[in-house]
């Protein structure tokens, strides 16, 4: 990253580090300065926040009933031992 102001193209590559809070303080400050005056990057960040939010609401497929029953039987056998 250059020492000067951040460009939008640079900012989009730093978003995950920003979210995960792993940017060095100086880079974090530059990131936030850019964000404060850039509507495009504000929208971009917001899109990613929503993307992450939607990912968290996906539900995993549940275990197949047959596999579940087999494993419960394994549990019962184990219990008997």
């Amino acid at each position, binding site marked *: 990253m250059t020492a000067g102001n951040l460009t939008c193209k640079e900012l*989009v590559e730093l978003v995950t580090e920003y979210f995960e809070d792993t940017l060095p303080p100086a880079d974090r400050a530059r990131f936030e300065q850019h964000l404060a005056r850039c509507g495009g990057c504000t929208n971009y960040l917001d*899109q990613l926040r929503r993307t992450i939010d939607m990912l968290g609401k996906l539900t*995993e497929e549940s275990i197949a009933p047959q596999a579940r029953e087999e494993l419960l039987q394994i549990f019962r056998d184990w219990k008997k031992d």
Partner: protein
Amino acid sequence: MSSRLAARTLYVGCVSHMSTFQQVGKEADPAGIVASAKDLRLVEALRGGDEAAFAALLDAYHTSMLRLAMIFVPDQAVAEEVVQEAWLGVLHGLARFEGRSSLKTWIFRILTNCAKTRGQRESRSVPFSSIWNPEADPGDPAVDPDRFNPADAPKEAHHWVSFPNSWNEIPEERLLSQETRAVIQQAIEALPPSQREVIMLHDVDGWASQEVCNVLGISESNQRVLLHRARSKVRRALERYFDDE
């Protein structure tokens, strides 16, 4: 041979190859995440033969375990055997679980041990870190370069040509619709396996970064790179979908 017996036979094979469950149980978590009070209560219930407690574990982790096993072994059928083997390993290791890692990390470590052992036997030895070599993979940019002004633009070089749209006006029920979910699912399925696994564990299953690193055996920074690429691609797919309306 019933699949139960098959699992038992495999389990024995698995144990003879992998580090023993005793070692797994005693291994301290590198991130210092230890078992919670809830984990310890659950372990006590399992030791006491509480079937409902075991069923709850199956419901919580089985699908993720199956997906993760698929990285190391050639097909679904083998992955299913590996997961069954791992569950058996969990049951037999319970007596020695000392709570020096979270129960989840411990279970998944048993799973990856079983899956790697089996993968080697099936001549498909793929430790997760070798599936993806960060140096050899420069990756795609998070955003299509055409979305930014060129470097020689008279002003605002590398700034947005046109802003990404705000999604604030999109109603909640649309964001959570079946159709939107399908777009996300497809985008995830199209990812390379390493990116897919990281985004599933971290963002869909809600694991902490350190837990993901521990189970996959990758560094925090590599995990972040994979997560970054995966999220960027899912966002792109969603943007395409919402902009098309």
